[in-house]
């Protein structure tokens, strides 16, 4: 099964991504996760009914970049009994 993007969609996408043709995206990296550019948990929950993906993600059982950083800080500061 082939998914073909229409000419019109192709033009819109290329324009918004600031590229001349679809081929230019091959060597382009995906955006990363950071505390400023993080996953939106509310948005994930909003679309969970129509998502067929991960149950963990749909139910919010994941660490966003910010939550992960906070977890690292919290756990590494926990004192071991001495």
């Amino acid at each position, binding site marked *: 099964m*082939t998914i073909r993007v229409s000419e019109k969609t192709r033009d819109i996408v290329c324009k918004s991504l600031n590229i001349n043709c*679809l*081929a230019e995206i*091959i*060597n382009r*990296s*995906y955006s*990363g*996760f950071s505390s400023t550019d993080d*996953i939106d948990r509310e948005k994930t929950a909003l679309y969970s009914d129509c998502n067929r993906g*991960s149950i*963990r*993600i749909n139910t919010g*059982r*994941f*660490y*966003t*970049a910010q939550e*992960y950083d906070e*977890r*690292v800080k919290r*756990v*590494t500061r*926990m*004192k*071991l*009994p*001495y």
Partner: protein
Amino acid sequence: MEIVPLGDKAKGFSEDEITQLESLASLYMQAKLLILYSEEVDPDFRSNLQTIKELRDAFDHLMRIVIERFGRDPSVIGDMAGPEYCKINLQKAIGHVYRAAFDALDGTVMSLREKIINSLDAFPLEAVKDILPEYWDIRIKLEELNEHIGEHRAKKDIGNNIGEVYDRFIKDVEILKSFHKKLLTASPALTEYISKQGKIQDSSTNRQIIVAIIGAVVGGLIVAAYMALVSAH
């Protein structure tokens, strides 16, 4: 962009590339195992999106190779197409899978650290000292690992000794896993220790009370005798 059957273009992979692809596949299987384990051991059964992102990026580099080798339009890759392009992207894919594995190991260390601390908090240190004497060695290991959390993810490129570091990390996590298991099975012994100590403490307290009562009675008698003597004179 279309993928054409191998026969049409007679394009495949060289021996070196096949060796690298095999390394990637083998590494991926180990990483997958560690990722699944880190999700299971997490106190809230949560996934780490950073790990998912690393796998997505690894897949992206792998697909660049597939497109370069089997895409109908070679101009898509531009001047970079060729064995070097394939080699670079394979190394990048391997790097991302390594980082996914290290993220999973970091997550596992944090989960085990949290669980070990929470379990130990329920018992006095003397009980742990007697029932789990190896705790002191594990404590050193936990503190060592704690200092290195996030270190591997901070590195953009993988070093030559990455395999060695990875193996050592897995070995250390294995030590923590087995200690955590031992801690869980030692809970009855630790509880029994506390209960025994409580009884010893109770009997010691009772003895102190009896001694205090006897002391008070004897003291009272002496005072009474002294008062009687004083009043007689």
